[in-house]
């Protein structure tokens, strides 16, 4: 794997981490005034080109949902 591709992969991992943080932050904001909706899995699946397997995405979204709900529970009150 070239250095350039390795850098791109690292940049994508960082972006994913930042997006997860932002999702958890937003989940906390929503949870302070409403119930937390489930992840929009069908919408995400419809937008993907199939490179990432659907079953894998489902597991990822499940983990993301659990993480966000944990972030809500652990939010300072």
């Amino acid at each position, binding site marked *: 794997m070239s250095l350039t591709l390795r850098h791109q992969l690292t940049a994508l991992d*960082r*972006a994913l981490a*930042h*997006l997860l*943080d*932002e*999702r958890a*932050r*937003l989940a906390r*904001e929503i949870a302070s*005034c409403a119930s937390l909706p489930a992840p929009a899995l069908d919408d995400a699946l419809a937008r993907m080109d199939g490179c990432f397997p659907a079953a894998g995405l489902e597991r990822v979204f499940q983990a993301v949902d659990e993480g966000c709900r944990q972030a809500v529970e652990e939010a300072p009150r």
Partner: protein
Amino acid sequence: MILRLQIGTPAASVSELRAFIEGQGLRTFLSPEPTRPILAIVDRVPETLANQLAARPEVEQSIVPRGEWRLVDRAWREHPTSVSVGSVRVGAGESVVIAGPCSVEGRELILEGARICRDGGAHILRGGAFKPRTSPYAFQGLGREGLAQLKDAGQSVGLPVISEIMDATQVDAFRECEIDCLQVGARNMQNFTLLKAIAGAGRPVLLKRGLSATVAEWLAAAEYLAAHGSEQIILCERGIRTFETATRNTLDLTVLPLLRQWTHLPILVDPSHAAGIPELVAPLSRAAIAAGADGVAVEVHPRPDQALSDGAQALLPGELTQVVAECRVVGAALGRGFHRQPPLPAVQAGV
């Protein structure tokens, strides 16, 4: 010239150095920076004196300014600064969205607009009451009554408000109506009488870039505000005049990374005035956040086709929601947070 002194330089040494410089007939300013003493010499420093000052043991770094500004120079502060507009902090690492109609057109309409902005995820409500129109026959705004309606609408949805001031005689009206941030429009960027008058108003100022202003002229205008007592300045790029006529103006995103090097002030982008075409507002907003803007200012109207000014460039309510969501996603991918909306007023929050 800006002198960045060693961290921990005793206050007595700073005063002594200042007295020495002022004894040479030069005016100085001391930065409010809490961690490091920083001195700005606003007059031209003779070369021999400059060399003498740079060699002093308490001077860590002496910087020759790039232009006619000192107090807004990046070297004047240790870190980029943020500005509080009501409870919203602009420039604190979280993107903000200013939204609202071009003009306040009446109590019901601005209230409807405020609700749209609140529901769409915006942080600050905008609306013009004194309108600088190219045509003297175009709608000139509701004046002081418009300011009062804007403030009432903002309060009803829990958002601070911003409006354009055009003349020094309007400062009292803005203060009395408790407008949270004063906007200096592109046409008034170099109205130095106005800049000096509002610098002492004790309110944050959003300074738009002039239609044909260079970055140096823009920062020199900001320096007028800083030199006359305003520490709360936000810059706003809104497009400049070029040979291109396909869009209303040309959005100069180059200034975003450049200004990060040249100034400590927060920077917003107004894609609505830059493009003049609503379909371009969302992509330009994304680009602005990606290029490092602290947020965007967009025009939204409940019914753009009936707007009394600039309706052609206003977003529809649903389009604002999309712009906000996309700004959040682009910012998040780059490690930038999104400012939390101010709390709803107690009566609407069900308290």
